[in-house]
C-alpha cells in the first residue's frame, strides 16, 4: 500500500507565489484559506460534472435498479417520471447540484419503491456516522504508532532498530486489505474465537456499544497503513535532522535532546502534517474494502452496493460526498501547516 497514499495537490504557499511583491495586507492566513477554498470549490464543481456524466453513462438508472426485472414499459416510465429521470440531463444535473449545495441529497430511490418519501440524507447519515467512528478508531492508532515508529527509526537511523521497524512494517503494508483482513479473521475468530467476524450492530445501537466489533476492521486498516506512514515520517524527520539550522545548533554545542525537540521536530512538523492528511485520505479508500469485508454498515459499503446495483443517484451523491471530504482534508492540512510553520506565511528564511 506504500504508494496507495496518494500525493496530494501541491500546497500552494502564499510565499511561493508572491515572492516579487512586498507582502501587503493583513491576515495572510485568512486570504490563503479563502483562496484555497475557492480553488477547492472549482475542483469540486469540475468533479461533479465528471461524476454526473460517468453515472449517467452507467447502464440502467436508479429507477431500473429499484424495479429490477419489472424495469420496462409502463412501470419503468412511471417511476422515472416520479423520480425526475425523464428530464433533460442538464436539468437533472442542475437539480442535483443545487440540492447538494443546500445539503439536500434528494429523495432516495428506496422511498419511491415504498410509495413514500425517504431522503437520501436520512439513509446515509447513520452510515456516515458509523464510518466516521471506524475511521477515527483507526486514525488515532495509525497516527500515534507511525509517529512513534517514524521518529524513533529516524533518530536511530541505520541501526538495527531502524531495520527492524522497516522490515516489520513492510510486510503487512504489502498485503491488500482483504488479504490481511482474512488472515486476521482466521486468527482471531477461526483459531482463537476471540472476536466477531461480522460487524453486526443491533438495531438502535451504535458501534461504540460493542467495541469488539471494531477491533478487526481497525486492525486491518492499521496493519496496512502504519508501515508506509511511518516510513514517510521517518524520511521527513531525517530531512529535518539534516537541515542547516540543526547542524548549526549542534555545532553551537546545544544538547542533542534539545536539538531534536526544538529544531528537528519543529521542522519535521510540516511534512508530518502532510502524512497525517494522507492517512486520513487513505482511510476513505480503505473503508470501502474493509466495510465490505466485515459487513460494517458504513458509507463505503453503501457505495459499493450502490455501484453494484446501478443506483446511480446514490453513487453520484456518495461519491461527491467522499470527494468533498477528501478535498477538505487537503485544505485543513495545509491550513494547519500554515499555522504551525509561520515562515511559510511570510516567505522568509
Amino acid at each position, binding site marked *: *500500500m*506504500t*504508494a*496507495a497514499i*496518494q*500525493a*496530494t*495537490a*501541491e500546497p500552494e504557499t502564499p510565499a511561493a507565489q508572491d515572492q516579487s511583491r512586498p507582502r501587503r495586507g493583513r491576515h495572510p492566513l485568512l486570504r490563503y484559506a479563502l483562496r484555497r477554498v475557492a*480553488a*477547492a470549490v472549482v*475542483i*469540486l464543481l*469540475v*468533479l461533479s460534472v*465528471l*461524476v454526473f456524466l*460517468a*453515472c449517467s*453513462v*452507467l*447502464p440502467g438508472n436508479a429507477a431500473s435498479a429499484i424495479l429490477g426485472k419489472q424495469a420496462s414499459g409502463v412501470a419503468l416510465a412511471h417511476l422515472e417520471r416520479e423520480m425526475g429521470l425523464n428530464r433533460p440531463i442538464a436539468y437533472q444535473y442542475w437539480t442535483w447540484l443545487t440540492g447538494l449545495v443546500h445539503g439536500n441529497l434528494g429523495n432516495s430511490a428506496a422511498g419511491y419503491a415504498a410509495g413514500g418519501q425517504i431522503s437520501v440524507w436520512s439513509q446515509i447519515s447513520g452510515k456516515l456516522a458509523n464510518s466516521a467512528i471506524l475511521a477515527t478508531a483507526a486514525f488515532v492508532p495509525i497516527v500515534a504508532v507511525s509517529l512513534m515508529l517514524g521518529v524513533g527509526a529516524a533518530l536511530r*537511523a541505520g541501526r538495527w532498530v531502524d*531495520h527492524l521497524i*522497516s*522490515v516489520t512494517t*513492510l*510486510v503487512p*503494508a*504489502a*498485503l*491488500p*486489505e*482483504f*488479504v490481511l483482513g*482474512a*488472515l486476521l479473521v*482466521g486468527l482471531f475468530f*477461526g483459531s482463537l474465537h476471540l472476536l466477531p467476524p461480522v460487524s453486526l450492530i443491533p438495531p438502535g445501537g451504535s458501534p461504540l456499544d460493542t467495541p469488539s466489533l471494531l477491533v478487526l476492521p481497525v486492525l486491518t486498516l492499521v496493519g496496512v497503513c502504519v508501515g508506509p506512514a511511518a516510513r514517510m515520517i521517518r*524520511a521527513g524527520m*531525517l530531512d529535518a535532522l539534516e537541515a542547516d539550522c540543526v547542524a548549526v545548533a549542534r555545532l553551537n554545542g546545544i544538547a542533542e535532546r534539545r536539538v531534536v525537540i526544538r529544531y528537528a521536530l519543529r521542522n519535521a512538523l510540516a511534512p508530518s502534517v502532510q502524512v497525517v492528511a494522507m492517512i486520513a*485520505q487513505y482511510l*476513505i*479508500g480503505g473503508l*470501502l*474494502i474493509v466495510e*465490505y469485508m466485515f459487513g460494517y454498515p458504513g458509507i463505503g459499503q453503501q*457505495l*459499493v452496493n450502490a*455501484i*453494484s446495483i*446501478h443506483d446511480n443517484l446514490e*453513487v453520484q451523491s456518495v*461519491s461527491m460526498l*467522499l*470527494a468533498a471530504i*477528501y*478535498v477538505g482534508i*487537503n485544505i485543513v492540512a495545509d491550513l494547519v501547516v500554515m499555522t504551525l510553520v509561520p515562515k511559510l506565511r511570510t516567505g522568509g528564511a
Partner: protein
Amino acid sequence: MITGVAEDLDIKQRAKRRLALPPTLAGKIGLIMLAAVVLLALAGPELAPYSPRLTVGAPYAPSGGHFLLGTDVLGRDVLSRVLFGGRTVLIYAGLATILAYLAGLAFGLFAGYLRGWPDQALMRSVDVLLSFPALVFILLVSTAAGQGIIPVMVATAIIQAPAIARIVRTATLEQSVRGFVEAAVARGESAISVLRREILPNIARPLSADVGLRFTWSVLLIASVNFLGLGLQPPAADWGLMVSENWGGIGANPAAVLVPAALLGLLCVAINLLSDSLAGGRQWQ
C-alpha cells in the same frame, strides 16, 4: 561550456550504479524474492500438472494426494492455477504502470518544458484528479465502461499518472533552466530533441525511485477491484481472483486462498525491499 560533457559522464556513472546489485542485505533478499516470484509467474505454466481450467476433482479437496495444494471452488487443481495465475498479475499491473508512466511523462514533460498556460492547465487537471479517492475513481470508471479487466487497468493507469506527471514536471522545470539545456536551445535544437537528449535522462533518477512502489500499488489496486468482483472475471486464473473466488472454502482448503495471497504479498514485499534499497534510503539524495 563543458557542463554538457560533465553531465554525460554523470549519466554513464549513474547508469552503472543503477545496474549494480542492491547495497543492503534487505535489498539482496528482495531481489532474490522478486526473481523467484517472477520466474514462477512466467515459467509456471510450463510446469503445471493440469490445465488451470479443468475440473479434476471434488471442490475444495484438501492438499495432499493427487493435488499438492488441493482443489478450488470448481474442483480445479490449485497448484496449476497458481502456476498460471501470476502472469495476469504481472501483465495487467505492469501494463497499468507502464501506461501511467507514459502518460505522466508525456504530460509532465510537456507542461514542464513549455511552462505558461499548458503548465497551468495541466497542473489544475492534475489537482482535480488527485482530489478524488483512487478506489472510488476506479470503481466508477470500470462500471461505466462495463465490467472487465481492461477498464480497470486503464483507470489504474489514469489515477497514477497525475502524481508521475507532477514529479516529471517539477524535474523538467528544474532541468530546463540548467545551462546545458539553454545551450542546446541556443544551438537550434528542436524541442523534441532537447527533451529527449538533455532532459529525459536527467529526470530518470527521481522517477526510478518510486517505480517499484507504483507497480506495487497497481498490483494491490487491481487485486482489490477483482476482490470486489468488478474486474477480472472467472474462469481466468489470477492470484487476486483466486483469493476472492475461493474465499468461501477457506475452512475446507485454506491453501486455495492462502497460497495466491502469499504470492501476491511476496511480490509486493520483494519490490518494496528492492526499491527501498536501490533508492539507498537516504544515501543518494
